[in-house]
C-alpha cells in the first residue's frame, strides 16, 4: 500500500467518524428537525471548496511568476476538487432548501453567486481542455483562476451585502449550541483533510500525465527517445 492509498483510507475513515458525530453526537435541531444535519457537510464542503480555489489562485499566481509546472499542477488539482466540493454544497443546499423552503432553488445572492462560482471553475476546466496543452493552457487557466477567485468573497459576503433568503452567518456569531459547534468544527476539519488528500492524489495523477505528455519538462525528453523508425 503506498502513501496515497493510506492517506485516502485515513481521510475516508475521518469522514466516517464525522458522519457518526453528525448523526449520533450532534443534537437534533428543534425547529427544522433532522434535516438540519445537512448543515455540517453543506458548510464544510463550501469552506473546503473555498480552500481549493485559494490553491488555484495561489498556484496560478506562482505559475505566472516563475512558470513552475508544480504550481500549475496544484492549480489544476485544486480546481477539479473545488468543483466537486462546490457541487456537494449545491446539492446539499438544494435538498435542504426543498424541505425548509419548499423549492429546490430560489434566487438570492448566496445561491446565485455559488452557482456562478461553480460555472466559473467549470469554465476553468474547459479552458484547460480547449487551449493548447502545456504553457498556453496553464497561463490562460491561471488568468481565469485569478479572476474567478473574485467570486469567492462575493459568495461569502453575499448574505451581509444583500438581503437573502439564505441564512446569514451563524458560526462567527456564536449562534450555535456547543455540541453543534463542536460537531461542525470536527466535520470541517475532516472535510478539509479530505480535500487536501484529494488534491494530493490528483496532483500525483497530474504529475504522471505531465511526465507522459512531457509538456513542461525539457530535460526528460532527451533521455526518453523513441527508437529510430525503420526507413
Amino acid at each position, binding site marked *: 500500500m503506498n502513501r496515497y492509498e493510506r492517506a485516502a483510507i485515513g481521510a475516508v475513515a475521518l469522514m466516517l467518524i464525522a458522519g457518526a458525530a453528525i448523526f449520533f453526537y450532534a443534537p437534533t435541531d428543534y425547529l427544522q428537525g433532522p434535516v438540519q444535519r445537512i448543515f455540517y457537510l453543506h458548510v464544510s464542503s463550501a469552506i473546503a471548496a473555498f480552500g481549493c480555489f485559494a490553491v488555484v489562485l495561489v498556484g496560478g499566481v506562482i505559475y505566472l511568476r516563475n512558470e513552475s509546472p508544480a504550481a500549475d499542477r496544484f492549480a489544476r488539482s485544486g480546481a477539479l476538487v473545488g468543483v466537486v466540493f462546490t457541487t456537494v454544497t449545491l446539492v446539499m443546499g438544494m435538498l435542504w432548501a426543498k424541505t425548509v423552503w419548499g423549492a429546490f432553488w430560489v434566487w438570492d445572492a448566496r445561491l446565485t453567486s455559488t452557482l456562478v462560482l461553480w460555472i466559473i471553475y467549470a469554465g476553468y476546466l474547459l479552458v484547460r481542455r*480547449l487551449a493548447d496543452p502545456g504553457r498556453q493552457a496553464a497561463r490562460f487557466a491561471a488568468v481565469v483562476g485569478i479572476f474567478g477567485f473574485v467570486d469567492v468573497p462575493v459568495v461569502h459576503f453575499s448574505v451581509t451585502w444583500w438581503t437573502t433568503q439564505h441564512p446569514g452567518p451563524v458560526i462567527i456569531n456564536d449562534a450555535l449550541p456547543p455540541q453543534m459547534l463542536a460537531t461542525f468544527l470536527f466535520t470541517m476539519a475532516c472535510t478539509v483533510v479530505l480535500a487536501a488528500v484529494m488534491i494530493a492524489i490528483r496532483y500525483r495523477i497530474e504529475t504522471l500525465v505531465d511526465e507522459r505528455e512531457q509538456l513542461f519538462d525539457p530535460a526528460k525528453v532527451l533521455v526518453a527517445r523513441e527508437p529510430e523508425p525503420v526507413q
Partner: protein
Amino acid sequence: MNPFRVALAVARKDLRSEWRTREVVPALAQFIILALLIGNFGFQVDSRNAASIAPGILWLALVFAGLVAFGRTFAAEREQASLEAMLMTPASPVAIFAGKAVAASLLLIACEAVMLPALSLFFGTPFSADVVAAVLIATVGMAALGCLFAAMVARVRARELLLPLLTLPLWIPFIIAGGQAVQSAMGLPGSYSEAISLLIDFDILFLVLTSLAARFVLDE
C-alpha cells in the same frame, strides 16, 4: 518604445477598418433596437412595470452587444492571422491589448448612444444623465474584462462559445450594480450613489487585474 503610441496606432487602425467597412456599429445598433423590440413583446410592458423591466432589457441587450463587439475585435485578427503578426513586433502586448480594448469600447459606446434614447422611446422611461453615467461607468470595467477574455479565446478552439462562458460570470457584478443604479435612476427605490460607488470599485479592481493579466494572455 512608447506604449501610448502603440496603443493609439492599434486603436486608430481598428477604428479606421470599422469606418471603411462599417461592419460593427450599424448592425449592432440595429440589433440592439431589435432586442428592445423583442423584449417589448416578450414581457408585456405597461406604464406601471416599465421602470422595473426596462433596465433588465437594457442590460441584456448591452451584454450581448458587448460580447459580439469584443469577440469580433479579436476574432477578426485571428481569422487574418494578423494577431500573430502584431505580436511578432517588439511592441508591448499590453499596449496592443489596450489599443484594441479602447477601440472596441468606443464602438460599444457608439451603440449605447443609440440604445439609451431608443430605450426611453420604447418604454417611456426617463433618459437622464444618471442613466447615461451608470451605463458608461459600467462599460469601462466590462470592456476591460470582455477584451481580456476575447483576446484569450481568440487563440483557443470554440471561441464564440467560450467567450460568453468566461465573461458573463464576471460581468454579473456589473449587471447587478448597474441594474440597481439604472432602476433607481428611473425612479424605483434603491440607492443610486451606493450602486455607482460599487460599480467604480469593480471598475478599479478589474482594470488593475486586467492590466496585470494582459501580458500573459497575449504574450507567447
